[in-house]
């Protein structure tokens, strides 16, 4: 009997098939319920009505080569059968993904193009497990990744190209803090002023948020610009010098801990600082002089307050600094759970 006759007759006992064509041109027929397990094939059949005969075979995406397709069909065949227990499925899946990484990648790609989400999830988790806990060299070897980053790029993985002025501000704040901490470390012998700053960490951060009462009086439209006032805290010269010291110490730290997480060094600030400085001045021009004077005063204030806090936090490394910072000087009895 010709295929045409078979298609016409279709008695109940006969299965129906879908015709599929892989990237290499070969055509095969697959049981309907198995093929329809793939959303992409399902869509083609329903929306375009193809796949019912050899001449109208569904063309599979290029990422699906015959070997992968046969694997996927095995998966679909197993999973589409109703009545499988979760344990059965899990055991099957675990055995199914045991293959070399190259095939795993191809399989992920193929499953993705067929929109077969459960298999994509399974394979991507397997790939994640392979990557987890390995050093970059190991990962590159396993996946044959080209080692095409320069040494510099590796040390400074990314430049901060964040446009958000608040992020840049926080960058500076953080850099300044680190710088000052290092400086204090070195000058530990020097007598420190006894003056206790009553103001809290809250006030410091209110500058960041622009919620400081004095500053809030300005028009609301200038909110974002308010945050730039911190940029004037330090001159870029100072930063350059200190940053290079920071980089060295940071690298030392990394070597000691031996962690595989790349050190995101302070050096990147070197790159962003001078640039950002000039940009900010442009923006600051929009603020009228009277306001700018006020901002300058605030900045001085702010810098002073920052200093005081770090002094205290340095001198009292292991004591609960947080209580005294709030200004009431009382320590709280902790009757909570033990760590």
């Amino acid at each position, binding site marked *: 009997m010709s295929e045409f006759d078979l298609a016409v007759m279709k008695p109940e006992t006969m299965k129906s098939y879908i015709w599929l064509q892989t990237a290499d041109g070969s055509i095969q027929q697959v049981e309907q319920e198995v093929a329809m397990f793939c959303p992409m094939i399902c869509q083609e059949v329903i929306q375009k009505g193809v796949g019912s005969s050899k001449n109208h075979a569904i063309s599979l995406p290029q990422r699906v080569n015959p070997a992968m397709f046969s694997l996927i069909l095995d998966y679909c065949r197993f999973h589409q059968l109703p009545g499988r227990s979760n344990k059965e499925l899990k055991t099957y899946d675990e055995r199914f993904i045991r293959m070399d990484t190259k095939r795993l990648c191809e399989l992920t790609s193929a499953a993705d193009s067929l929109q077969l989400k459960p298999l994509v999830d399974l394979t991507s988790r397997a790939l994640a497990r392979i990557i987890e806990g390995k050093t970059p060299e190991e990962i590159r070897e396993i996946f044959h990744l080209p080692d095409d980053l320069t040494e510099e790029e590796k040390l400074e993985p990314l430049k901060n190209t964040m446009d958000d002025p608040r992020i840049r501000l926080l960058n500076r704040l953080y850099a300044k803090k680190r710088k000052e901490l290092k400086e204090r470390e070195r000058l530990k012998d020097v007598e420190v002023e006894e003056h206790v700053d009553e103001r809290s960490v809250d006030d410091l951060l209110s500058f960041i948020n622009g919620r400081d009462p004095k500053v809030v009086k300005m028009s609301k439209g200038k909110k974002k610009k308010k945050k730039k006032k911190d940029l004037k805290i330090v001159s870029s010269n100072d930063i350059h010098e200190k940053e290079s010291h920071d980089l060295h110490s940071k690298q030392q730290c990394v070597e000691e801990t031996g*962690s595989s997480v790349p050190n995101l060094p302070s050096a990147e600030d070197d790159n962003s600082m001078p640039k950002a400085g000039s940009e900010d001045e442009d923006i600051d021009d929009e603020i009228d002089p009277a306001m700018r004077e006020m901002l300058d005063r605030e900045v001085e204030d702010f810098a002073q307050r920052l200093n005081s806090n770090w002094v205290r936090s340095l001198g009292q490394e292991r004591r609960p600094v947080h209580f005294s910072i709030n200004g009431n000087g009382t320590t709280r009895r902790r009757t909570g759970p033990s760590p």
Partner: protein
Amino acid sequence: MEQKLTDGLGSSNRDAVNEDRISELPDALLLQILSSLPTDNAIATSVLSKRWRSLWTMLPKLKFDSDFNPVFDDDNIDPCMFSENVYKSLSLHKAPVLESLHLKFEGRTDCLDVGIWIATAFARGVRKLVLDSFYHEEQIVTLPSVLFSYNDTLEILKLKNAIDLDFPSRVCLKSLRKLYLDQVHFKDEESVCNLFCGCPSLEDLFVHRYGNVDVATFTIAVPSLQRLTIEDLRSEGGYGNGSYVINAPALKYLNIDGFNDIESCLIEKALELVEAKISNVSDITNENILESLTSAKRLILHLSPLEVKVPTGKIFHRLVCLELRTYEREWWNLLSIMLDSSPKLQILKLTDVYLHNDKQNPDVRKWNPPKCAPECLLFHLETFVWIGYEWQRGDEKEVATYILENARQLKKATISTKRIEREMLEKLEKRREMLNELASVLWDPNSCHLVFEST
């Protein structure tokens, strides 16, 4: 799991490019793979190759755990290093929205660091923020309250453990829908108020606290609140007896657990209440718990009538489903009152899931069944379930008999008893006898399906 690759003898650069199958995958897939990795591993991939350099910055969810590395001693974990990494990662992150940021850090972290992390996360539009601070030498972190003075992206906030909350003025968390406070410490009652009042969209509140450690009266006054769970873990050595005030007119789901030895618990009536679960309450000097739940459709009461005021009269006019725990003292009296007070009851469930062996001696007080059959039994009760039925106890047998006898609309009754070993033939026989007895008192054996189970 996978076989070692056997090729690769001096592969040239060109070969390497051809062999690299993983980098061919679309960005979305690579991101999916990265999402399954712990965050620090994912960030480490940025040194792999050009393709991978900035992939991780599009990750929607980030989690940093300063306790993660078990190799090093406590003393060697450098909080500065951790702060540095967190901060840098956050500022490099580029995805349009930071879906979720989860930070686990030590109590001795400088609160300026914590402040900068939070500020950066807010600047990145974070939707879900989890701060878990674990105790280190009894130190806790005070959250910089000023950061919460305005935020309109945060939807879920979870604060755990060694965190101190001090809000001298009202916060403004416009989009916050879910708030979890897990053993955190409020500085004063004003802070509690300033926090709750500043969340106009708050729907879910989950509080897990040591009731006698921070504030004396814990007031929850949130007009938008729909789901509330309070678990009080009273600690030994606390001071004073706390109080609770709950004012949530839009409340739909209430769960109270562990109010023991409390000065007062006052709940405003919640007219939209769908379900309430009250468990483990005792010794409350001044309370109106059950009175406030009269609009409920479902009630789960794991408490004894000796510990709370049980109002009488047909007040539970919407109650359709009731569950009582048979482990409580004089639970059967609670049952009587509730049957009388709930005219529309359709489902009754009695449970003792743990099959306690030390229940109160049944002879101490006799059960007083309702004087005349309650309305619900006559007209509405259709389902009766008893888990952990102790067929040897007289009091339980009385209750079971009463219900089965009088429930005229009963369609299904399920009684589940403790498992008896196959060898204990005599016991098995006795149980079978007793269960048959029960079956015989059924009001309408034809329309009621009686099921006996054994756990």
